[in-house]
Structure formats: structure tokens, C-alpha cells
């Protein structure tokens, strides 16, 4: 697949804080690339640079064959941005919002109505096209935010946390819309905090930390190094007498997290140490209520690599 977006040694500094630090990656045509990273990892800065509204300090970005430094307007014409904040006018009908923003991209009057209709239908808002966004639910506003970004039928769509704070139905609809856009040939960059979304739709994942890519690949590729890792979660009546140092002595145990009535143990599955873990828990006054086990997921990879929880 030909490369549509190429980012090379990108740097951006804000008030002596290096938000993006030698960032390099490529995105192929028709690919959905998920960008994951803890708060402050540089995701939004990267997206705003790709959206051409933020000037990088250095580095080279080529989008659809255009150099970001020299051909900003050409790049703007081929991309659609779904910003994290709702970039819509609340007092103007949904249809007029989509029509106005699509018209700024030079869509001819002859095609405008059809494209607006397609965009509204694809996000499931066609029946509410005459209503003002101020009467919409959060999920509907998010969907309209997407319709405004896709009505001019861009080749590249950049989404910055488009599903923040919405109901599962709307989220599901948005994810389906994204997959449908990919099927029509769009290249999509999708930044999110939700691992399951990336696992569901992304062909490839970039994990960002401190402004640089620390891992990239498909979900399977990223989980590869962690296939022998298993996470046990124990629900106990009390953790008062339990100490991390006791569990850490068990062979194979890698990480321990004790909070309230839950004890989480990440261990090497090949060591078969479950019986030993349980007996230590019981002998230290923890009466087991329930337990479950989970094999390595993208979240495990993410937390291991970044050492941070998503929402610090």
C-alpha cells in the first residue's frame, strides 16, 4: 500500500516542554491507525500539526504528497478533522452546519446536497437534519461533529478522541461509521484513550509516550512479547494484612497491585504459580470472594510500556 502520511523527526516544544520529540511514523493508504498514549504523550499536538493548525519546530511531514511546510492549503483540502471538542454551531441546524463546513472545501453546489445527505445518513442523523444541535444529546453532537468532517469526502480523516463521554450505542455507531469510511477508501488516524476501540477498528497501533513512538504494530504484534503473561484479579474480603512484598517473592510474579478489596497479580503463565498465590493470600488473612484471569491485552502492553494509567 502506498504511504499517505509520512512523519519524520517531528519536534514541537511548548514553554520548554518537549510535547513532540523526534516523532516518526508512516500511514499507508486505506489504513486505520490508532494512536494511544497517556495524557501529555503528544497525541493532540501531533494531530494539530497534521491538521496544519500548529507549526512544528522541526521535522518533515508529507501528507498525500504535499509538504506540510510549503503546501498547507493543499493538505487542508484533502483532510477531514474530527476534533476532540465539538466544532459545530449550536444554533444552526445540523444540515446547515454540515453544508457550511463542506462548502468551505470547495464542494460544488451540484454535489453539496448529495454529499451532505450522505454524511448525515452515515452518522444516523438524517432524520434530525432540521434540528439544532443545541437540542441534541452528547452522542448526537459527537456524530454531527463527524458528519461535518466527512461531508467533503476527504481522503484522510484525523480523529482526536471522537467518542469521549458518549453512550455505548453512539460509540458503536461511530465505530461502525469509521469502518465504513475505511471501506470506501479513506485513510484514518484515530487517537483515543479507549483500548477496546483501537482493538476493534485499528489495523495498526502507535503507542506514544513523551512525544515519541515507543511501540507500533498490529494488536497481535504488540501483544506478542507478552503472550506468556497472565493477570489474576482476586476479590477478597480484606487486604489489611496483605503486603506486596509477600507476593513478590513468588517465582514468576511480575507486578502486584493492591487496592481496597482487589488484588491484581501479573505473572508468567508458564510458572503455574496460581495455587501458591492463592495459598499465600489465604494464609495472610484474605478470604477469596471471586477471581478471574486475563491474558495479555493491549492494555497490558500499554501499561507495561508507558508505566502509566491512561487517565492520570
Amino acid at each position, binding site marked *: 500500500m502506498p504511504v499517505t502520511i509520512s512523519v519524520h523527526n517531528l519536534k514541537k516544544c511548548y514553554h520548554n516542554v518537549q510535547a513532540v520529540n523526534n516523532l516518526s511514523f508512516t500511514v499507508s493508504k486505506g489504513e486505520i491507525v490508532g494512536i494511544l498514549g497517556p495524557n501529555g504523550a503528544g497525541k493532540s499536538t501531533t494531530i*494539530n500539526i497534521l*491538521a*496544519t*493548525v*500548529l507549526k512544528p519546530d522541526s521535522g518533515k511531514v508529507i501528507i498525500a504528497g504535499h509538504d506540510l511546510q510549503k503546501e498547507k*492549503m493543499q493538505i*487542508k*483540502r484533502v*483532510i477531514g*478533522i474530527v*476534533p476532540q*471538542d*465539538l*466544532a*459545530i*454551531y*449550536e*444554533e*444552526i441546524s445540523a444540515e446547515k*452546519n454540515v453544508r*457550511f*463546513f463542506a*462548502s*468551505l*472545501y*470547495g464542494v460544488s453546489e451540484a454535489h453539496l446536497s448529495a454529499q451532505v445527505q450522505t454524511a448525515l445518513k452515515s452518522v444516523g442523523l438524517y432524520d434530525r437534519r432540521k434540528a439544532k444541535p443545541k437540542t441534541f444529546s452528547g452522542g448526537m453532537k459527537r456524530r454531527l461533529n463527524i458528519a*461535518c468532517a466527512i461531508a467533503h469526502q476527504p481522503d484522510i480523516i484525523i480523529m482526536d478522541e471522537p467518542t469521549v463521554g458518549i453512550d455505548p450505542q453512539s460509540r458503536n455507531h461511530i465505530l461502525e461509521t469509521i469502518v465504513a469510511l475505511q471501506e470506501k477508501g479513506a485513510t484514518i488516524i484515530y487517537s483515543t484513550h479507549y483500548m477496546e476501540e483501537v482493538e476493534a477498528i485499528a489495523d495498526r497501533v502507535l503507542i506514544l509516550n513523551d512525544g515519541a513512538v515507543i511501540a507500533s504494530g498490529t494488536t497481535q504484534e504488540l501483544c506478542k512479547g507478552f503472550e506468556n503473561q497472565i493477570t489474576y484479579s482476586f476479590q477478597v474480603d480484606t487486604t489489611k494484612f496483605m503486603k506486596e512484598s509477600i507476593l513478590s517473592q513468588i517465582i514468576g510474579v511480575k507486578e502486584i497491585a493492591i487496592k481496597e478489596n482487589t488484588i491484581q497479580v501479573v505473572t508468567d503463565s508458564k510458572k503455574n504459580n496460581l495455587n501458591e498465590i492463592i495459598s499465600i493470600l489465604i494464609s495472610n488473612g484474605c478470604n477469596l470472594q471471586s477471581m478471574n484471569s486475563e491474558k495479555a491485552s493491549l492494555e497490558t502492553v500499554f501499561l507495561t510500556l508507558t508505566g502509566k494509567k491512561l487517565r492520570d
Partner: protein
Amino acid sequence: MNFLKIVKYDFINILHNPALIISNTILPVVLIAVLGFVTQNNFGKEPLSAYDYQSVNMLIFSVSLIVAITTSNSFMEEKVIRGNMRIAYAPVSKMEMVLSKIVSSYIFVSICYGMLIPFCQYILGVNMGGNRCLWFALLLNAFSFFECCFGAMFCCIFRSEEQANSIMQIPLFIFIFLGGVLVSIHRLGKIVNEISYISPVKWIVRCSYQIIYDNDLHLLLSIIISLAILSLICLLICGLRFKPEEYI
């Protein structure tokens, strides 16, 4: 033309803001009525009644204070700033973005004051110069354009509507005070009187009375040219200071 499309939608957004409509239409009339009533004992009936005097002063006062705020609202008000953000992502130049806010609010206030002057002259029956009210309207219109540019400039400098509005009011109130539309400046001594000539409002007031009562237009052209130059300076500062990412 993206510029005209943006102007159109900016104008529609202004029309959706009742506070801006009221402040540019009903408020000046209320001010004229209240201050005219309160000060009527200080005036005779001919040639200048309290209502004649307050009409001219309050229209100038409203343009001085409210027009700049109208532009800053259309630029960065909470309800529109997010939509404006999407314009920043679109293939639109930054000067088109700034100018569209200025032009849309200028069209809006031109319509408002374009209706208020004949309303005062022919419905309320106050003296706006009769047929010469067109010259007064032209003067007020040029002043409105300057105020629009002035409001946009403050948004570009301070990058937030709230900050722009609060800081902008300081020079505006100084101009209004020195212009003598609220209190008579000549009673405050020679020095204050001399300083008052730096206020554009002072010149607008002086020119307005010359047009209405003396049929004298000799200041009009020079004031319009001066306002055009001041507007250009504001636009230049807008161009230098405005960064589309400030919407983000």
C-alpha cells in the same frame, strides 16, 4: 468564495444572539428615553431639546461601547468559538477568518444604526439633522467600522473574548469620558479639555453637531479618512497577532 460564506454564517450567528440584538437596537433607545427624561429640565425646547442632545450622544456612546463588543463576541464568544475552530481546519486563510468577523458584525451594526437614526428622526421626532441625517449616518457608519476593527484587534491581542472585552472597556471608557458624551468635559479645566482631543469620540461628537446644527461638513471627510487609517492599523495588528490555533 469562502469569505462570503463565512460572513453569511457569522452574520446568522450574530442574529442568534439576542443580547447583541437588544444592545444594538433597544438599549440606545432606552438610554435616549431615560437620559432625555432625566435631563429635560436642563434644556429648553429649541433649538436643542434634552432628547435631541441625548439622541446624538447616546447613539455615539452605543457605537463606542457596544460595537467593539459585538465583534469580539462574534469572534470568540463561547457559543461560536467551537464552530469557528472548524473554520481554522478548513482551507481558509487567517485574514479571511478575521475579516469575516469584522465584516459580519459591521453589516449587522450598520443595519441596526441605519434603522435607529431614521427611527429617532422620523418616529421619535428628535433632531438628527433632517435630510442631513444621512451624513450623520455616514459618520457613525465609519466609526462603527473602526470599532469593529478595534474589537477584533483586542481579540487577536488577548486571545480570549472575556479578557478582550474587559480590557477593551478601559480605553473605550476613556474615549467616551473624554468625548464628553456622558459628562461635560469643559467644566473639568483647560488641561482635561486639551487632552480630550486625543479621543476619537470627541471628534465624532463635534462633527455630528456641526452636521446636524450648522450644516457644516468640513470635518466629515478628514474624520472618515482618520478612522480608515486607524481601522487599517487595527487590521494590521490583527494580521500580525492572530493565530488560527488560538481557536483550538
